[in-house]
């Protein structure tokens, strides 16, 4: 599983990568996941349904991430309006 984070001026960066079935690697993934959420990120898991339709799922804890998910994408949480300061 890869934890990716969108980043201004860079595109996505790899935050962490590991096998959820390996205890030590899962622990590292959980820590990285928490760090991103604490930094104010939202986490989404891109998914594909059986009929081929692509969707996404927002998750609030590592426990909500499907075990077979390949990627979790972190992005800044939504804020109403695009203020000039954000540009």
């Amino acid at each position, binding site marked *: 599983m890869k934890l990716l984070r969108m980043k*201004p001026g860079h595109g996505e960066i790899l935050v962490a990568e590991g096998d959820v079935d390996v205890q030590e690697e899962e622990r590292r993934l959980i820590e990285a996941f928490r760090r991103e959420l604490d930094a104010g990120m939202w986490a989404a898991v891109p998914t594909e349904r059986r009929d081929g339709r692509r969707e996404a799922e927002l998750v609030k804890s590592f426990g909500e991430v499907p075990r077979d998910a390949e990627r979790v994408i972190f992005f800044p949480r939504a804020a109403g309006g695009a*203020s000039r300061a*954000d540009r």
Partner: protein
Amino acid sequence: MLLALGTAAIVLAVLLWELARSRALRLLRAAGTQLQTALERARSRESAPLGYDPGRERRAEQRARELLRSCVEERDWAMYRDLGFMRVWGGLGGRAHGTDASYAYLIYPHRPIVAYVPQTGALLNEYCVAFPDHSRPYGSARLPDSDDVLAKWMALVADERHLIEQANMHLPGRQVDPERVKRDLARLTRWEREGGIGATDILRAA
């Protein structure tokens, strides 16, 4: 005599105004849009961070495009690639798709999400929402364009109600020119009629 002439002049002026009003309003709106665009350009020049590197931004956008492409359906990706925006069907009140959906959204990079009625093209609302990264790694809080589109897409598809609640809702025309949206909807219709196959696909197929 003077009274009659005065009244006739007023009636004539009102009639002329009625005839010219729609054209005058269109011209005013177009001038307003041009002014707004010019101001936005000037602002972005003023607010460009000192460490701004066009090459880095281009590479960031390229990465973001690849990520977007890997997450959405091929057709949605082609729509964004060819038209510069993406349509998402509205899901509140029934997860209907295509022409059965009661409303849909247009996602533009770094622009409000525009809600409209697919059957009529009537514009409903603008939802102003941003994903500012306050850590500002290179001096700017702004994600690459395609990351912004992907963030909106994921948030809409995953939890439409929540995203809409986070957004500032406005009537159409506040930030996105309604005429532009109408042109985009016409382009989308044409694009779909042609099978949504862009030049790149044709080249690839050949």
